């Protein structure tokens, strides 16, 4: 019985390990866990309705720097508090053919949105005013310090009333 029990425990451990491996593989470069990221069109509407700035994360499945930003940058508790409190959080899968409805009424795919915003690669992060105007844009891996720096910059610009560039997807 002990031998059979040991084998059973090993089998369960192996199944657990394989499941965890599969989960980590399919989870690569999804929005970071524990954050409430929503669709781009939904986020623009929410930002305007609640008069809150919008943080847009362009990611891609298979993107290592997205994964690193998730596991290092967004895993920081201070980052989580700042970004959850300060922004409407939006995630765009830059290779998706799902359609979005822009505020103009135009329906484009998530990938077309990347084309319109000329995203060279992933990840790309946009900070937007509640009305959609761009405040700041950052490319590539972002660690916790950089994410907190950008948050301070954007919050200060909000309080100072600095106008951003029009965002024209």
């Amino acid at each position, binding site marked *: 019985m002990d031998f059979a029990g040991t084998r059973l425990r090993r089998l369960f451990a192996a199944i657990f390990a394989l499941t965890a491996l599969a989960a980590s593989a399919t989870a*690569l470069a999804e929005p970071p866990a524990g954050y409430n990221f929503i669709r781009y069109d939904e986020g623009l509407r929410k930002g305007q309705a609640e008069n809150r700035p919008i943080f847009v994360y362009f990611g*891609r*499945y*298979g993107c*290592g720097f997205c994964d690193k930003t998730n596991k290092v940058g967004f895993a920081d508790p201070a980052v989580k508090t700042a970004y959850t409190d300060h922004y409407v959080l939006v995630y765009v899968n830059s*290779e998706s053919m799902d359609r979005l409805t822009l505020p103009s009424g135009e*329906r484009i795919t998530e990938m077309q949105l990347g*084309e319109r915003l000329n995203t060279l690669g992933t990840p790309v992060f946009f900070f937007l005013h509640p009305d959609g105007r761009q405040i700041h844009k950052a490319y590539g891996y972002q660690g916790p310090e950089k994410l907190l720096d950008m948050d301070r910059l954007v919050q200060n610009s909000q309080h100072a009333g600095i106008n951003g560039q029009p965002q024209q997807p």
Partner: protein
Amino acid sequence: MIPRLPIATACALVWATAAAESQLLTVTTTDNQADFIQLESSGRKNIAADDKQVGLVWEETRAGHTASYLALRPLDTGQGFGPAQRLGSHDAFNPVIASCGGKFFVAWIEQDSVSVTRYDGGTRGPVVQLGNGPVNELTIGCRDDSALLAWSRRAGKGYAVEAGAVRANGADLTATVPVAVASGETYQFQTNPGVAFARDRVVVTWHDRSGGTNLLYATSGASLEQLDKQVQINELIQKSYEWGSGSSAVRNALAVGRKQRLVAVWLDKRASRAGYKVYSAFSDDGGVSWSDNYNIIDEWGTIVPQWTPAVASNGGDKVRVVWMDAREDNNTIWTAQLNGMTWSANSNLSGDAEDAHSPVIAYSPDGTLHAAWIEKVNGNSRLQYFSDKD
């Protein structure tokens, strides 16, 4: 105006003039910045041509919602496109068109299913429905009296690609029962399908990110019910931890060239921090095996990302690819032609356009090139058509 000349000389002159002639037409334009025109479909199958007509399908929002339209242009009169004919009566998007036997198969997505019809000399036939569930993307190919359609629909938390055929018997259309092209357990995110007929086989392509990054796959068989095991088309460049799961391959398009050679093109993320490049691969056995991958972008285009590749052939010596990039600052349409196994240098197709995007392309059997794209002019959308004796 051609002067009166001896018949042989006049014929030669007409031929020479025609050979050098290219035409640029505006098919439709919006006069309100709140309205939009779109050329968007899986495999970029929004234009098709035979030796008598060219058909163009697009979607626009002027009806107050997304509606799809078809316009036909006779090629023998030199006139422009006829009036736009609306496809469907509800929200209709992702229209596609294919030319076979002097007729056009036309399909679109409406109310979560695929609607298919056939136009014979401008007369529309009955509409049949395929698919069941939230269809997201649609593509088309055809052979003789049959159209082959493939679409991606939501399946659980992912997507599945399904394919079905529509056969014409006289004026009637009959739809087959759709089949899944690959295992939903192994491939959980099947999107962006392409289809073709080559060497008496049906070929379906798609991409899937179940392995951590989007990879391009093909399956083929004597019929949809006899599809073989999947083969991977793109070469996966294994990357380091920093680069993630490897290069992705997305937005594939298919054409069939001389000797039934399949040509696949797609956007590839390999080794480039300047975004996607357009790559290609060939199959001489109806999609069973595929060649090495070949980059289509020349050195002038390496510093900018490329978008929305489309490919077409006349089934003979003409194979051409189009895409959009901004290597000269503005969004413009670029093209390359296949010479044997070598792609030509890239050349501009949209001329002086300041903001052109979403190109699509087709050939007539005689090698006349037909292309269309969207231009933004003063905030309005304009659907442009270009033809040239290639």
